[in-house]
């Protein structure tokens, strides 16, 4: 005879529906309406930044850039829910979180502009740089979470990854160890439905990505990633749960990539037009705006003032980026080892000599 030894459920959470109508109770963090406006402002700033960054790439002033249009709620929720002493381990669509954690807009521009100083983060000593190789950052989060637990520090490591990244072994290995060691790690998946041109349906046979946490022995939750209120709540709850020593959580935030994968990509080659059109009606910013307006927390004057101040800040960041003096040629060599080995000292001298001849 057969009996069931284990059964699982994956909750889906949405508090603000596609029409911007509250369908659940407003969570604790939103008891001060200013917090909701703050989330809105970060999302708008991120979207305007995104537009500018794409324009910089298109006009030859920056290298390849990974846009974040339509997915601003996820990074915004992460950055808002984390405490300063926590550590963020980002991938390359997390600018909204990074901005809230002291990473300058000019840093992100420098990063995609081919300048390592973009990962130096002057006002953020411990967050990791943007991780490009896919899913490997999940293991760094586990290691950082281990360090917190080892030193009995009430801190949390938050890592973000795309839906495609969840097919990588490192994602599973990280969840497995985080589960078995009960580490203070929150895994956030930006499920924007596309890994470059490969859709989520080609990526996994599972109904959800969230359920992959079950195999690692902890909770997986699916949230409407275009609903900033729910996303902020669920991520915040998971962070505080981890801080309290109750272990990791996997959060799958459902959204849609309303952009190319990077500026080197052309999403019209694979994203069906109808699908994009439908997704664009669900995007996070207009949804929250509608709610805020209905609640008399937002109006056109505030909107105009916000857009002006964001655009001014972006303009300043672009100025900083474009006017940053190029790194000296010696910097190619200067950061490989604490003490430079002789062969690098020699090669450094050669490179400097060559550069002087140019």
């Amino acid at each position, binding site marked *: 005879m057969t009996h069931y030894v284990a059964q699982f459920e994956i909750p889906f959470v949405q508090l603000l529906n596609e029409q911007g109508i509250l369908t659940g109770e407003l969570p604790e963090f939103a008891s001060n309406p200013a917090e909701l406006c703050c989330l809105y402002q970060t999302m708008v700033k991120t979207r305007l930044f995104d537009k500018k960054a794409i324009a910089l790439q298109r006009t030859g002033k920056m290298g390849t850039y990974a846009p974040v249009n339509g997915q601003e709620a996820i990074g915004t929720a992460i950055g808002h829910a984390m405490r300063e002493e926590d550590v963020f381990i980002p991938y390359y669509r997390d600018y909204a979180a990074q901005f809230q954690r002291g990473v300058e807009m000019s840093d992100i521009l420098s990063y995609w502009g081919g300048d390592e100083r973009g990962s130096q983060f002057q006002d953020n000593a411990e967050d990791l740089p943007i991780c490009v190789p896919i899913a490997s950052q999940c*293991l760094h989060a586990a290691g950082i979470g281990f*360090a917190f637990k080892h030193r009995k520090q009430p801190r949390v490591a938050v890592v973000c990854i795309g839906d495609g990244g969840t097919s990588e072994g490192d994602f599973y290995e*990280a969840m497995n160890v985080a589960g078995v060691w009960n580490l203070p790690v929150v895994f956030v998946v930006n499920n924007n439905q596309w890994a470059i041109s490969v859709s989520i349906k080609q990526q996994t046979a599972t109904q959800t990505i969230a359920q992959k946490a079950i195999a690692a022995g902890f909770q997986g939750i699916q949230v409407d990633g275009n609903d900033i209120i729910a996303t902020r709540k669920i991520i915040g709850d998971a962070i505080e749960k981890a801080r309290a020593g109750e272990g990791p959580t996997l959060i799958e935030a459902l959204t849609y990539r309303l952009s190319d994968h990077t500026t080197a990509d052309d999403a019209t080659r694979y994203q069906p037009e109808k699908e994009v059109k439908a997704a664009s009606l669900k995007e996070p910013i207009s949804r929250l705006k509608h709610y805020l307006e209905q609640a008399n927390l937002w109006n056109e004057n505030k909107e105009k003032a916000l857009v002006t101040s964001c655009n001014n800040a972006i303009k300043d960041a672009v100025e900083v980026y474009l006017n940053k003096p190029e790194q000296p040629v010696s910097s190619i060599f200067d950061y490989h080892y604490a003490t430079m080995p002789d062969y690098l000292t020699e090669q450094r001298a050669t490179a400097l000599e060559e550069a002087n001849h140019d």
Partner: protein
Amino acid sequence: MTNITLVEAVTQALAYELKHDKDVVIFGEDVGHNGGVFRATDGLQKIFGENRVFDTPLAESMIGGLAVGMSVQGLKPVAEFQFMGFIYPAMNQIVTHAARMRNRTRGRLHCPIVFRAPFGGGIRAPEHHSESTEALFAHIPGLQVVIPSSPKRAYGLLLAAIRNPDPVIFLEPKRIYRLTKQPVPDDGIALPLGKCFTLKQGDDVTLVSFGASVHETLQAANQLEEEGVSCEVIDVATIKPLDIETILNSVEHTGRCVIIHEAAKTGGVGADISAQIAENCFSDLIAPVQRVTGYDTVMPYFQLEKHYIPSVNRIKNTVLSIME
């Protein structure tokens, strides 16, 4: 003072650093209660507790990635890969992250990690347990690669590796884990990384080796001595950064050089040493530089491995061939 083996010297160094640096943590597969499959961490968990010495789930990329995360938080992970043949899943973490973090962040973050792995053949091990692929790591900017060949050097170099602020690949030649014993004072004194050790002085030929092959090289040198060929023997010890000065100085003196290592010939460390000799002291050479290495084949399974590993005879014959 009792004489100890190379693997015991590894344990002694690990214990010393665990005792004196609270940030050191040791982990890997079976390193905890079991003390590692070669017993390199024997007894350490009992002394220092499960928070400092612990088993991980069985996943090598995870071991590499955990070390990166721990190290950017200021811990000093000493991560063991059970055999070098199983290190490859962690290559992405080692090459893409550990080796690059300092440069990527312009010095903001760095990875003081030691990745330990037993390597090389000659112990009749199962398939995939006997390779020598140290050159893969020596090729990677940001890494340092250290290979001890005696108990004393294992102790002193491992201390230095753990204290080094950047990632070190520490490869332990398992064929000589228990080959010889010598007294190794537990004085916490590190040996310098990036320096060769001249084990024997001589006038006619410079024999350059590292790892387990140092032992066949010394035997060959002693036999050649009886036949009237005076050999200088250098243990490279750190293959990256390479102390080429010591090698060049010796070759300038002897005019001949034979490089001996167990790893495959093409793209091996010997190729780089040979090139640097050609670049820097071509006019001092009396004879062409020779390499005695493993063949460019898959490491044979153990029935035939003795034909692959450079033997005393192969070394001797190669030296004699350039003594005209």
